[in-house]
C-alpha cells in the first residue's frame, strides 16, 4: 500500500494536503474528529482545517477552551473509548502543556494496562519561524517525544508526505505526534487525489549522490535540497535523505546511503543536543562501529533560545549556505575556504514569508 501512487499531475500545497488527508479519513471513518483551539474559526489553522466544519459539522470539528492539559486527557480518553481524535496545536510550543497527559498516560496506557486499551490519537502541531516568532513560538521539540516509548513521531517535509503520513497516523492505533512546519505550508508537490498511505517508519532518498549523505528533518530537508544544488557548483555530489518518521526511525535507509557515501551530515530543525540528530548519529555509529570510520556532523538551532530580531535569528538557524559549506568541508577537509554563491543562498519560499503570523 505504501507509496502506491507517487506520480500525480496535480500539484498541491502542504497545507491543502494535510487538510485533504484528514478530510478523506473523516469521510471514511465516523470515529475520526478534529478539535483544538481555533480549528473552527475562519483562519482554520492557516487553512489546514478549512471546510471541515462545513462538511462534517460541529460535533466532529470543534474549538476548545484554552485548556491544553485537560483537552489532551479528553483526547486520550476518547481514543481509548474507540474514537480517533486529531488534536491540533497551532504551535508546537503549546504542547508543553500537554506533556503530562501524553507522556504519563497516552504513551503508556497500552503497555501499562496490559494491552486492554489503545490510544489511536494524532496530535498535530506546527513549528514556527521568522517574523519575530521568538523563543516561545518557534521551538522544534520533536526529540522530547522521540524519547518516550509508546509515542510515534512523524515530521513530513513536503505535501506528498504530509497527506500520506496524516492518513497513516490517523489509522495508527498509537498516539502519533505529527510535526508540521509553518514555512512548509505553501510549498507544493504532486499529490494524488485518492487516499494513500506513506507508511510510518520508512524514510526516502530524495536526491541521489556519492560523496556525502545529508539527512534533513522537517523544514531542514528543503534547506538540504537547496544545499545539494549549491554543492553541485563545487562538484560535490550529495545524497539527501528524508527520514520522514523520526520514531520509529528508518535507520536502514540512512545507513544504506552512508555505505555508498561514507559521510553523514544531519541537519535538524531543532537543537542538536539529545536531539533527533544525536539519535541518528548514535545509531549510525553503532551500526558502523569497528567496521568503518564515518565522519559525522550535526547542525541545528544555535544552542540558545530563539531570538526575535532578524539580526540574530539569521545566525540561529542552519541555511543552505551553512549546510553546503559544512558538507563541502567534510568532503574536502583540505579546502574549507570554499564559499557558495550568495545569490543561491535564500530559499524563495522563505524570503516570501511575511508576518505577523
Amino acid at each position, binding site marked *: 500500500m505504501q507509496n502506491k501512487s507517487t506520480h500525480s499531475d496535480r500539484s498541491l500545497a502542504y497545507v491543502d494536503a494535510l487538510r485533504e488527508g484528514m478530510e478523506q479519513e473523516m469521510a471514511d471513518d465516523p470515529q475520526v474528529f478534529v478539535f483544538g483551539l*481555533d480549528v473552527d*474559526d475562519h483562519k482554520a489553522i492557516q487553512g489546514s482545517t478549512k471546510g471541515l466544519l462545513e462538511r462534517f459539522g460541529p460535533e466532529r470539528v470543534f474549538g476548545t477552551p484554552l485548556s491544553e492539559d485537560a483537552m489532551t486527557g479528553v483526547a486520550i480518553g476518547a481514543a481509548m473509548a474507540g474514537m480517533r481524535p486529531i488534536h491540533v496545536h497551532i504551535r508546537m510550543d503549546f504542547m508543553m502543556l500537554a506533556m503530562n497527559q501524553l507522556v504519563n498516560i497516552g504513551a503508556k496506557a497500552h503497555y501499562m494496562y496490559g494491552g486492554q486499551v489503545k490510544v489511536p490519537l494524532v496530535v498535530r502541531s506546527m513549528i514556527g519561524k521568522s*517574523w519575530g516568532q521568538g523563543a516561545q513560538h518557534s521551538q522544534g521539540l520533536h526529540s522530547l517525544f522521540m524519547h518516550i516509548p509508546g509515542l510515534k513521531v512523524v515530521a513530513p517535509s513536503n505535501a506528498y508526505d504530509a497527506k500520506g503520513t496524516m492518513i497513516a497516523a490517523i489509522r495508527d492505533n498509537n498516539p502519533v505526534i505529527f510535526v508540521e512546519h509553518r514555512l512548509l505550508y505553501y510549498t507544493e508537490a504532486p499529490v494524488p487525489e485518492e487516499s494513500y498511505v506513506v507508511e510510518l517508519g520508512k524514510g526516502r532518498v530524495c536526491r541521489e549522490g556519492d560523496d556525502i549523505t545529508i539527512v534533513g528533518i522537517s523544514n531542514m530537508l528543503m534547506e538540504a535540497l537547496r544545499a545539494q544544488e549549491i554543492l553541485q557548483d563545487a562538484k560535490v555530489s550529495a545524497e539527501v535523505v528524508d527520514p520522514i518518521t523520526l520514531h520509529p526511525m528508518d535507520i536502514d535507509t540512512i545507513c544504506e546511503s552512508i555505505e555508498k557515501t561514507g559521510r553523514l551530515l544531519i541537519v535538524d530543525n531543532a537543537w542538536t543536543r539529545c536531539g533527533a540528530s544525536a539519535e541518528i548519529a548514535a545509531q549510525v555509529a553503532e551500526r558502523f562501529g569497528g567496521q568503518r570510520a564515518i565522519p559525522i556532523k550535526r547542525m541545528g538551532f544555535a544552542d540558545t*533560545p530563539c*531570538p526575535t530580531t532578524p539580526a540574530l535569528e539569521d545566525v540561529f538557524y542552519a541555511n543552505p549556505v551553512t549546510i553546503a559549506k559544512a558538507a563541502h568541508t567534510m568532503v574536502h577537509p583540505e579546502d574549507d575556504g570554499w564559499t557558495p554563491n550568495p545569490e543561491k543562498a535564500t530559499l524563495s519560499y522563505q524570503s516570501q514569508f511575511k*508576518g505577523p503570523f
Partner: protein
Amino acid sequence: MITKTVPSATDTVRLYRTLRYIRRVEEEIARIYPSDKIKSPVHLSIGQEAIAVGACDPLMSEDFVSASYRGHAAYLAKGGDLKKMMAELYGKKDGCAGGKAGSMHLIDMPNNVLGMSAVVGTTIPVAAGFALSLKRKAEGNVIVAFMGDGATEEGCFGETLNFSSLHKLPILFVCENNDYAIHTPSSKRWATDRLCERVATYGMPAVRIEDGDVLAIREAATRHIDNMRNGGGPAFLECATYRWREHVGPGEDYESGYRDRNELAAWIEKDQVPRLGGMLSTDEREAIDAEIESTITEAIAFAENSHFPDTNQLMAHVYAE
C-alpha cells in the same frame, strides 16, 4: 496604613495623559507596521487602555506589574521605558531585551515591569511568585497581574488563585475580558460567564467592572491594593473591554465575519480617551497632546537610529553568570 492619595484635580490630567499616551504609541506602531521595520507580531491594546491605566494608577514605583503578550499598555502604564520598547520592536540592540524579546516578551526590570510571555497564562503563577517574595519583604508592595479572558481557562489560573489566597499574597489579578480569545467568543469557551463567582470561591474579593470606566477601575484597584498592602490578601478584577483591532497585527478584522462592527460602535461611545480629555480645558489637553507627540517622535527616532545587535549577542545570556 500605606495608601497613595493624590489630589483629584491632577487625577484627571494624569489619567488622560497615560490613556492618550498609550493610544498614540499603539497607533504609531500600527502606522509604522506596513513598512516592515517592526518584524514582530504585535497584539495591540487599542480600546483596552483604561484597564492598564486604571489598575496601575494606584501603584508606587516599587510595585510590580505582569502582563501577557498583549502587554504594551501595562508596560507603559507602569512607567516602562518607551524608547527601549520601540527599539525592541525594531529588533535593535538598545531594545529592552537587546532584540531578543520583540513585542511579545517586553520587560523593564528597572521599572518593575516583569517579562511578558507568549504562552497564554504562563505569567500568572510567576506573578504570584513575585507576590510571595513581596510578602516576605513586608514592605507593603504589591503586584498587579494582567491576563486575558482566555487565560482564565488554563489550569494554572485556578491553581494560582488557590495558592495566592491560601498564602494571602499581595496580588491583584486583573482580567482584561474582551470576550474573545483570538476569534472565539467566550460563549463558545465558557459553560457560564460567572467568572467572578468562580474566583470568589477561592476566598478573595472578585468584582466585575462593566464599561471600561477608568475611574471605576482605578477606584476598585485602589481599594483592593490598599487592603493588600496591609496584609489583606489577593483580589480579582474582571474588566469588560473590547479589542478594536485584529488579534495580532495592526489592522481591523471586522470583514472576516466572526464579529460585528456594531460591537465596536458601542465601545467607541465608551472610549475613555475622549471622555477624560473632555474633562480638561482645551489648552490643558493640547499641551498634553503635544508633549506626548514629541515623546513618541523621540522614541521612534531612537529606535530608527539604534543599531541591530552584533551577532556575538546570540550566545549572550543563555546562562546567568
